[in-house]
């Protein structure tokens, strides 16, 4: 710009007519004005985004089988059935772990189910979500599972805001990528809408086909020969009378917004939200209807029931913005009039489970505690296992399976006052 001005000045010195000088001045000024268009701020941003990797639906479905086991990195919901633990690896699939010998749990296989964040087991069929689809997998032989049925498009809420995935392809992985953006470039990275929350759950069936025992993060719930799923504001009903051929029955309102968990209790369903639980009567299996609310527990508060009482843990640090750490025991013999019986202070309680009179509570960084809950008005601590950051637990017989930050632990509590860690499978962080 300066070189241009200098050249113009030198010419101007030699000009003799006033009009030529005026023209030169105008030209010079115009150049300066036009160059304003080139003067703007530049921004270069270096950041990290997630990019999807795709496969075709046919490729993905062909790969739903028992494959080489992989490391645990992001464990989610787990189910136990007949000596095997089926543990969700968030968004990737299902680990199959042989725990028939608690001292030597063995990660024997992995089933690739992209997008899986939920599991349920009915008989020999494992149900999982594959993004928007429901898949039914025969797990009769855990080392050789078989895909039986795909029910497409039943979970349309599983989308990515600001990102439209290809409908013919399935995202099989997300890769973190460092990227550089310039000026007005924008990022469009995928964001999962469905959150996964923790909630202890158990299920049973009167139809002769046993449902597996699940722990935590329940968005699928099995009751009798129906499966109920929830996502934010909707509940869906699936007929699983023929377990390997689930049939979508209907969709209905979940009774509120931000519904994130569901668990069955007798002839009722408890749907968890940020403000409490919505209670649905499922006496008519295909026509659940809301009967009331249970405000003693919210979506962040793990809850289990032994049929007469509900045991609810509340903690600080959860997304429900709680500030107390305690166990609440609620009499639910009359669901229309739940009654808080007693509160017990705890450290930072998370998931819990109950086997007979033994109540097991995960206390986060404070490990796992075992209680005698024979008298709910006088629950006494029996033992405390430290050295793990425990989030969730399932009690099966005399073995507790504890999901912790670094591993899946198997704890023998045959002698409740002296629980022993028998074995574990590491989680790679």
């Amino acid at each position, binding site marked *: 710009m300066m070189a241009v001005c200098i050249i113009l000045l030198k010419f101007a010195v030699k000009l003799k007519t006033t009009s030529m000088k005026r023209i030169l001045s105008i030209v010079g000024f115009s150049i300066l004005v036009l160059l304003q268009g080139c*003067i703007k*701020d530049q*921004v270069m941003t270096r*950041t*990290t985004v997630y990019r999807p990797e795709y496969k075709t639906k046919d490729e993905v479905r062909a790969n739903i089988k028992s494959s080489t086991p992989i490391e645990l990195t992001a464990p989610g919901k787990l189910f136990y059935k007949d000596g095997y633990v089926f543990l969700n690896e968030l968004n*990737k699939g299902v680990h199959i772990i042989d725990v028939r010998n608690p001292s030597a749990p063995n990660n024997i296989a992995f089933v690739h189910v992209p997008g899986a*964040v939920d599991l349920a087991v009915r008989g020999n069929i494992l149900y999982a979500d594959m993004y928007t689809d429901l898949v039914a997998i025969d797990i009769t032989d855990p080392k050789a599972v078989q895909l039986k049925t795909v029910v497409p498009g039943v979970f349309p809420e599983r989308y990515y805001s600001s990102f439209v995935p290809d409908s013919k392809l399935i995202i099989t992985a997300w890769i973190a990528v460092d990227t550089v953006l310039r000026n007005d470039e924008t990022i469009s990275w995928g964001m999962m809408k469905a959150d996964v929350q923790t909630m202890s759950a158990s299920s049973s069936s009167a139809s002769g086909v046993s449902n597996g025992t699940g722990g935590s993060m329940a968005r699928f719930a099995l009751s009798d020969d129906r499966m109920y799923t929830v996502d934010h504001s909707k509940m869906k009903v699936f007929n699983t009378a023929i377990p390997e051929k689930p049939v979508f029955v209907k969709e209905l309102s979940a009774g509120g917004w931000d519904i994130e968990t569901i668990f069955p209790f007798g002839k009722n369903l408890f749907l968890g939200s940020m403000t409490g639980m919505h209670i649905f009567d499922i006496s008519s299996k295909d026509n659940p209807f809301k009967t009331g609310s249970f405000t003693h527990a919210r979506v962040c508060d793990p809850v289990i029931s032994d049929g007469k009482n509900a045991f609810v843990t509340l903690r600080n640090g959860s997304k429900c913005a709680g500030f107390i750490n305690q166990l609440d025991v609620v009499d639910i013999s009359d669901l229309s009039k739940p009654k808080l019986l007693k509160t017990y202070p705890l450290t930072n309680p998370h998931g819990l489970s109950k086997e007979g009179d033994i109540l097991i509570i995960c206390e986060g960084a404070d490990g796992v505690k075992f209680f005698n809950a024979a008298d709910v008005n006088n629950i006494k601590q029996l033992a405390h296992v430290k050295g793990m950051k425990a989030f969730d637990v399932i009690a099966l017989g005399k073995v507790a399976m504890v999901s912790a930050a670094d591993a899946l632990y198997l704890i023998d509590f045959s002698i409740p006052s002296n629980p022993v860690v028998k074995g574990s499978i590491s989680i790679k962080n």
Partner: protein
Amino acid sequence: MIGFSLVLAMLGPGPANAQQKNWKPWLVPEAGIVLGSYTLDRDFRLNAGIEKKGLMLGMGAALDYYRFESYPVYFQARKTVQFRKVNLFVMSSWGYNVKSGTVVEPSWWGGRTITKKYSGGVYGEIGGGNIIRIRKKERLQFSVSWVMKAVEESFQSEIWNPVNQSPRTITNLNRYTMNRTALRIGWKF
């Protein structure tokens, strides 16, 4: 370096403004308005150096409020040119834009804050103007120039990890290169 090269290119054939034979000091405080694509703001500069035969060499420091308050320090070269009894000058400055510190801002994630750390970058200028004689000496200066300064901003934020459905903390780096037009008024001592 580009600025200095341009200045050197102007040295040769340009007419000298003064017949002084010895170097003498000069001082020019300036106040200006900087106009860019982001906003319009102000800057204040203090330049000083030595001059001989119309060539002024020196250093300067500034307070630049445009977008990020920063403190450029620079070397400066000026060349005065007389054009039909009008005293003009061209100038070029190059140096470093000093910027440091941290700023804590509220995040759109309720209750959270973002801490931004700042560091500086290049500062450069090319421009020119004229000098108005007051009391028989070149005193009042008006100038227009293109001015560039750079600032780096780093902060941590969270993105949603769709693999394990949890937030992941990442480090972001924004590098701003701000190109502006500066209109200044100065007084030469």
